[in-house]
């Protein structure tokens, strides 16, 4: 046996930055206070409200009672909650996992070899849809999809189609794909830049098709980026309140994703306790999704 080097007792008080533990704590404390105030406290508060029958008006608004898991049990039984969960899934799969992901990758892949001028124009256009404020964008889309005098109706010569009423989920999926593709495009652009050109050219010189090149050469290099991107856009989309601005969840709950459902329960219906419980359920869904992605990421790397 070789003697192990004397183990240095570093433990908790390890001072890697070399500025003294007291000073380090002082430096991070403002951030910790802010995080506690605006993130941790509201989350805990939501969980607390979720186990009460708190409402906006009436006796329960003055003296809410603890009802335990009652709200959660009710939600799992509520057909509207099930509907919202399902629509959220459709929204996330359609507009984020498939829409933004594929469109973003396709744009990045096609723009790779394009002339710099063309590339800049397309990138600016795509970015524009991302940085515009939601309210502005929603108004533009309502103008585009309106039944009478809508731009789309005029363009394809089908006036009288109320897109947001007749195809609310499809409209939302297209809208959110358009709205969020910029992030995926930018992320994939920089990921693609890290694929060694000689490997792409090797594939090309052995006669690999575009699809074979993506599958065999590009994808293995950017797998981590794909997972990270999919995780981020999935979470953002699941929690996105944008649909409310376009359809307000209607018609008749046909486009009521979970954030819209929560809002409808909390404000118009005034059932704060129930809405908080559903928020907690949404949080749990987010956690599960994140855990699955992280597991995948760890497994392949």
């Amino acid at each position: 046996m070789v003697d192990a080097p004397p183990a240095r007792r570093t433990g908790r008080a390890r001072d890697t930055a070399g500025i003294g533990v007291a000073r380090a704590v002082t430096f991070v404390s403002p951030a910790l206070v802010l995080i506690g105030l605006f993130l941790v406290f509201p989350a805990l508060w939501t969980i607390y409200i979720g186990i009460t029958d708190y409402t906006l008006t009436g006796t329960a608004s003055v003296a809410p009672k603890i009802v335990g898991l009652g709200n959660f049990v009710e939600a799992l039984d509520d057909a509207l909650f099930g509907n919202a969960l399902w629509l959220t899934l459709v929204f996330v799969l359609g507009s984020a996992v498939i829409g933004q992901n594929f469109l973003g990758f396709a744009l990045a892949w096609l723009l790779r070899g394009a002339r710099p001028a063309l590339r800049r124009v397309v990138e600016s256009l795509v970015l524009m849809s991302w940085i515009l404020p939601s309210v502005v964008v929603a108004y533009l889309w309502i103008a585009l999809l309106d039944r009478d005098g809508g731009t789309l109706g005029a363009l394809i010569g089908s006036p009288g189609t109320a897109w947001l009423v007749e195809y609310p989920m499809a409209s939302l999926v297209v809208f959110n794909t358009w709205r969020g593709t910029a992030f995926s495009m930018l992320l994939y652009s920089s990921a693609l830049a890290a694929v060694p050109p000689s490997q792409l050219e090797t594939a090309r010189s052995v006669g690999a098709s575009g699809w074979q090149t993506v599958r065999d050469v590009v994808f293995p290099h950017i797998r981590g980026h794909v997972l990270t991107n999919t995780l981020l856009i999935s979470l953002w989309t699941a929690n996105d309140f944008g649909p409310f601005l376009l359809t307000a969840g209607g018609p008749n709950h046909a486009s009521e994703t979970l954030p819209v459902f929560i809002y409808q329960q909390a404000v118009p219906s005034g059932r704060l306790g129930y809405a908080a419980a559903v928020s907690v359920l949404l949080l749990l869904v987010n956690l599960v999704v994140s855990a699955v992605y992280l597991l995948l990421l760890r497994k392949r790397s």
Partner: protein
Amino acid sequence: MAGIELAGVSTVYPNGVRAVDALDLTVADGEFFALLGPSGCGKTTLLRTIAGLEQASSGSVSIGGADVTRLEPGVRKVAMVFQDYALFPHMTVSENIAYPLRVRRAPKPERAETAARTAAGLGLAGLLERRPAQLSGGQQQRVALARAMAMSAEVLLLDEPLSNLDARLRLEARTFLKRLQRDLGLTTVFVTHDQAEALAMADRIAVMSEGRIRQLGSPRDVFQRPADTFVANFIGSTPMNLLPAQVRNGRVEVAGAHLDPGGPHPDAPVTVGIRPEYLHEAPEGITGTVSIVENLGVTSLVTLECPQDVTVGLTVPEHEEPPVGSVLTVAPRPGRLLLYDSDTGQLT
């Protein structure tokens, strides 16, 4: 099998750089051909133009008699090995080698069989299940070669395949590559900026500069009779002596000495080219004072300070180095003195 023919090929990059300039070149079937030249002279571009990775802006490229100027790289039957080997890091050695077959959708057993056979031929038999990151530089180079061979292409293009290897391994790989090429009889174009490598391996050499071929010939030709002062400067492990001189009455006046031009020559100002290896001590010739002695291994390079501010280098065998400060008279071996036009730099 297939030779390569380039006729008036120019390759211009989008930014206007004319990297290959109206170049004519014929590489015979089965020939081992080296492209040699300083950095940025267009060697890689020329190779990529043959492979089809760059499109010739004008002129035509033929392989095996068929015009391939407008064809995609994948159908040209050309295999290219890149300087960084471009092995796919996520595939095993076996999968890397068999990748050209996978692209063609060959069945799995055939792929494994081809990979195993090719690998065995290149001394990679035990490494089939490893990843490229678990291989040495020399092994990676052989995997890249094996993958190129698995394409069963007729033309092999190598872009500085040895430059990532250390000096010792490079010598081994040189011999190995040369034997492999001879056994397979593949038409091979080999890019290098190491002139020793080109001299040692190639059947013929093209020396390039600024997108054009300055000289094309056997290693012996290029070494012994560089066509101009550029090539003379570039070829040789020790730089050639290029001295200002004057031909007068059939004699070359250089650095205060009168040498025999080795043939009739009109009176004119010239540049004299003599390789350090071809100079030796003589009773008559250029006289100078030894200023520096550099050890090159078996030989030493001696620098002489001669009249008219001329310095002359010559090599002497080990243990025969003259002391610094001594005076030496040297003359070229008969027939080894080259005269270049002092204006155009062309061999006269």
